[in-house]
């Protein structure tokens, strides 16, 4: 079996989530198993009803960066949520919410979008990651 790609998503801004979604979809297209672990502000962005809203950009984007991102969106770039949906359709993508972050933000599993497969702790995440590569965004 191919080695897994394991992404820890921490940031909840649209640019970082977009980058993470692109990495996820690319790995899924290669047939690699992908484990995505949602922490803190990334998890907050996956709340049902909020997922397709504007989550802003990282501070380093600035005004010019905002224009670039907007231009890509107008040109028809899929949103990060849509990119993740397509990645999941390819198979091999598992998205888990960090249980500590659930407590921190007062989130129940029913508050999360259907993209999220379940809730786990960091130990389960590492165990599933095995010897695969780890990316933190």
């Amino acid at each position, binding site marked *: 079996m191919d080695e897994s790609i394991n992404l820890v998503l921490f940031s909840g801004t649209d640019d970082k989530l977009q980058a993470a979604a*692109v990495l996820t*979809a*690319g790995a899924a297209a*290669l*047939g690699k198993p992908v484990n995505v672990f949602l922490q803190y502000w990334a998890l907050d962005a996956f709340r049902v009803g909020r997922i397709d809203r504007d989550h802003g950009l990282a501070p380093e984007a600035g005004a010019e960066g905002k224009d670039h991102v907007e231009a890509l969106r107008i040109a028809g770039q*899929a949103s990060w949520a849509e*990119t993740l949906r397509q990645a999941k359709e390819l198979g091999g993508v598992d998205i888990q919410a960090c249980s500590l972050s659930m407590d921190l933000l007062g989130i129940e599993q029913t508050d999360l979008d259907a993209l999220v497969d379940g809730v786990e702790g960091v130990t389960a995440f590492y165990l599933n990651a095995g010897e695969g590569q780890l990316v933190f965004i």
Partner: protein
Amino acid sequence: MDTLEVKIPPAIDAKVDARGLSCPMPIVRTAQAIKTIASGALVEVLATDPGSLKDFTAWCRSTGNELVEQSADGTVYRFVIRRK
């Protein structure tokens, strides 16, 4: 007796129009489409993402599907891939 050799272009079994789509959607759409065709069948992809040249080569090498044809017409790239 001489035999007449006629080159018939290979029949395309699936087409992916990924023109205007940004990375990684051309590859994602192709990965989806190739699942719908039989082993040995061909998929044709049109893409405008400049990264697709290297991406399709790498994707084929990694997945074992064969990149049969690759060409460019202006800013549009065309790939023909045979399913493993």
